[in-house]
């Protein structure tokens, strides 16, 4: 009897729970989907209505068609660009990560040095503050002169752009460390190395990673600038070349590719941050449901 009762009640309860769970997930999916879908629909309608010529402002369906051929090379819809997507995407991604890598590494190091020492602040900070205000694009001519056409200027420009947010946020992170924690560690006998690695770095980490995230965003901006001006590969090059050949469908496909790769790069940074900063989300607002 008991077993019979159990088998009759449990599935029905599970059913209700599963249904409400499914409804909740459906609701969430709707919240995520509603805006991008609306944008696509409006865009498609505008394209079909013929306000502008189709090849000037191609609707999403045309972009998807050409994008598919860009990636696979199956349909030849992208003609001279057919099947080149992976090479371009890889070229850009590689440049972003190499440039981002050196810029952020140097930025964190310099940020720590300035943050830890008032003397080094006086020595380095004014120069950095002035250089920071020169748009990185203004470095293009000089970087071409020095590095020639190729990966050199691209990696230089991206690293330069990534350097400043990393450096400035690291300095800020070090400066805002709770002095009580620092005093407590010194009182317990921490040496310079232990202070740096076990107190200063972890305490400054939230701020450092904010800088790193900004650096990643800037890196994707600058890779396009560099590829338009200084290199003959990459999504920025593809975009500019397609513009010269009046292929706006390819231009938009390249733009969206850059957007997506930038988005995924940012997700990687956020993922690393969330792994390192499990402790940091306790006392923040986080938004309403």
């Amino acid at each position: 009897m008991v077993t019979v009762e159990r088998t009759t009640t449990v599935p029905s309860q599970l059913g209700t729970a599963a249904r409400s769970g499914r409804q909740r997930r459906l609701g969430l999916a709707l919240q995520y989907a509603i805006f991008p879908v609306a944008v696509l629909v409006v865009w498609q309608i505008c394209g079909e209505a013929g306000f502008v010529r189709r090849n000037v402002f191609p609707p999403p369906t045309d972009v998807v068609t050409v994008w598919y051929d860009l990636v696979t090379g199956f349909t030849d819809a992208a003609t001279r660009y057919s099947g080149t997507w992976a090479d371009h995407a890889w070229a850009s991604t590689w440049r972003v990560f190499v440039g981002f890598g050196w810029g952020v590494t140097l930025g964190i190091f310099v940020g720590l040095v300035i943050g830890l020492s008032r003397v080094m602040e006086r020595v380095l900070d004014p120069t950095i503050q002035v250089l920071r205000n020169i748009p990185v694009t203004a470095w293009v001519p000089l970087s071409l002169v020095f590095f020639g056409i190729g990966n050199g200027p691209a990696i230089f420009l991206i690293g330069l752009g990534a350097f400043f947010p990393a450096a400035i946020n690291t300095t800020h992170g070090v400066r805002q460390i709770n002095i009580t924690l620092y005093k407590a560690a010194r009182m317990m006998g921490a040496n310079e190395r232990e202070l740096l690695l076990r107190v200063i770095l972890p305490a400054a980490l939230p701020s450092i990673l904010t800088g790193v995230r900004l650096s990643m965003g800037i890196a994707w901006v600058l890779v396009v600038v560099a590829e338009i001006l200084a290199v003959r590969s990459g999504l920025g090059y593809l975009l500019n070349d397609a513009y010269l050949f009046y292929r706006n469908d390819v231009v938009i496909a390249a733009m969206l590719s850059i957007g997506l790769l930038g988005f995924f790069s940012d997700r990687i940074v956020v993922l690393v941050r969330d792994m390192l900063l499990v402790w940091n989300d306790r006392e923040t607002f986080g938004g309403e449901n």
Partner: protein
Amino acid sequence: MGRINISAVSKRFETAQATVTALDNVNLAVEEKEIVTLVGASGCGKSTLLNLIAGFDTPTAGQVLVDGMAVRGPGPDRGVVFQQTALFPWLTVEDNIGFGLSLQANRGKGDRRQVVERMLQRTGLAAFRERRPAELSGGMRQRAAIASVLAINPSTLLMDEPFGALDALTRSIMQDFLLEIWEEQRKTVVLVTHDIDEAIYLADKTVVMTAHPGRVSEVIEVNLPRPRKYEMRSTEPFIALRDHVTDIVRAEALKGTTMADAH
């Protein structure tokens, strides 16, 4: 271990506008295993004095000796408990308590895991060992902070308004907790507070300080029996001591306000 001698200590701070004399010719002796409380109106230099003993700051004149040696910076022989609890927010309670013993300077001061375990049991935080400081109540945080200092086994505890941020009920519980620890471990304790009841309840000696400049106004021997009990606060001798200290501190505070009015 843990004998403190402060002789003719003055501390002046230079600001852009003026020189502030935080301490003026202060003399004080703290015996081993004694609880001394420093009480006074704000600005009387009691925290400055504690900072000098801790070694976070150096006197402008005079000497601070701990066990006959001049203080040269902070060290694990003088454990400091801060008002703003010094717990690392990225470490769990047990890692915070074990932090001191994981430092090179404290190698060989005992098995870290064992000490942490004992501290967790002693402070009643065993069930919260995996929690991070932000997930604890104020009283639990301060207990964890005290445990992290006790773990390195300092001969002296320097406490800067350790219970000042707690509500009245938690504060009185923490006072008894501190006294229990002291009964077990008998460390020298120097505790700064602005709470006169607390200053008397805990102390063997209460040092009343006055401001502008910071001076020792009176050192009062508190001859209440130990172990102290909460009920003692309503006994005749306790009240007499409290009234006496209150008179000095209040007179000083009033003088401060009239001076401010005159300006």
